[in-house]
């Protein structure tokens, strides 16, 4: 299949940029990931504190976030070294 020259060039530029970006980010990789996870946990706490058994004054409005956030909650308690969800809140497993 024929690939246009500009597309090949674009692809090469992109991988060059990605390589440069990757080299630049290597020292901060762990830091970045930690920051990402921390923010994710904070959002989970603010948005769905009732999953942890902490009363949430706006629980009624965050109900609609459940479908998406329950998955994050499950990931969170596994990452925290708890094979089962903590007592008092949502028992996902």
């Amino acid at each position, binding site marked *: 299949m024929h690939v246009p020259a500009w597309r090949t060039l674009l692809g090469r530029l992109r991988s060059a940029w990605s390589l440069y970006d990757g080299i630049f980010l290597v020292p901060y990789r762990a830091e970045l990931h930690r920051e990402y996870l921390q923010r994710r946990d904070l*959002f989970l706490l603010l*948005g769905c504190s009732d999953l942890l058994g902490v009363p949430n004054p706006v*629980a*009624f409005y965050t109900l609609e976030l459940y479908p998406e956030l*329950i998955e994050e909650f499950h990931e969170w308690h596994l990452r925290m070294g708890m094979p089962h969800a903590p007592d008092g809140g949502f028992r996902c497993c």
Partner: protein
Amino acid sequence: MASSHGDAARARRRIPVLLSDARIQFFGGKGGVGKTTLAAAHAVAFADSGARTLLISTDPAHSTSDVLATPLGADPQQVEGPLWAMEIDPAHEADRYVADVKARIQDTTPPRLWQEVERQIDVARVSPGAQEAALFERVARLLETEAAAYDRVIFDTAPTGQTLQLLSLPEMMQAWMAGLIGRRKKLNAIAKIWKGRRGPAGEARGQADDPVLAALEARHERFVRARAVLTDRAQTVFNFVVLPEQLPILETERAVATLDRYQVPVGTVFVNRVLPERAEGAFLAQRREREHGYLERITKTFSTHPVVHVPLQGQDVVGLPALRTLLTTIDPPSS
């Protein structure tokens, strides 16, 4: 639509002078002061003037169907001519919302979690504030959809406390939602950098298709729109009903202050069940003496608002004819 507006304009001249021009009118006050009666009487008057009018009761006590002597449902139904009415049941609305979320969760959550998720949702269903939230949700949705087809929308609200919470909700929720949205956006920005490092699959999940952010933003926008309507002086007014008695006056005073704080425009103060001049007898003369003091106090307390006296009626105000008579017995505003 143009002709119906023309009719309404022509008819407006026939409406008693005390009726405000606002398209959306709330009636509030302490329990048992006659909110339902006055709201219904206004709705009937507007409908008689040719305006397509929707009377909405948000009071779980549901006296509106009793006053109109017509059974009402959760959707608008025709009472007579251009007069339509409905009753919103907060508990029913909460159930409806909960059922909605449960249905959505079944699509996205693994079946092993359903039971637990439902338990969690049922907890939220009975948590404090849930019914107000559901009620607000319904009112906001109503203002955006069905109510747009009416020339006048009259709300008969629940007693003060619930109503104030209802009206202050958008302000507080807006701030809270904005905070969550801000956090979610920052999270997504970092997620993009982090996941971008892990190949095109991670990169594809951008900010635009984050379902959590989309849900939050949709809700935030609904709050902003509802608040814009509630605080718009050109189309909304909140009328109060009081009795010439100590406790209703105090409660209404506080309520007016609260609405001012949330910038909800306050309109007329209706003083209900004022003893008519022709009521005779030594006992009534004594009552009237006391009443006079309260009436003066009401005029002074609500000096920046028109105060209208509604005389005590000889008979129960039930049914359309009685509601029509009620407004004709009212003197013009005293301020």
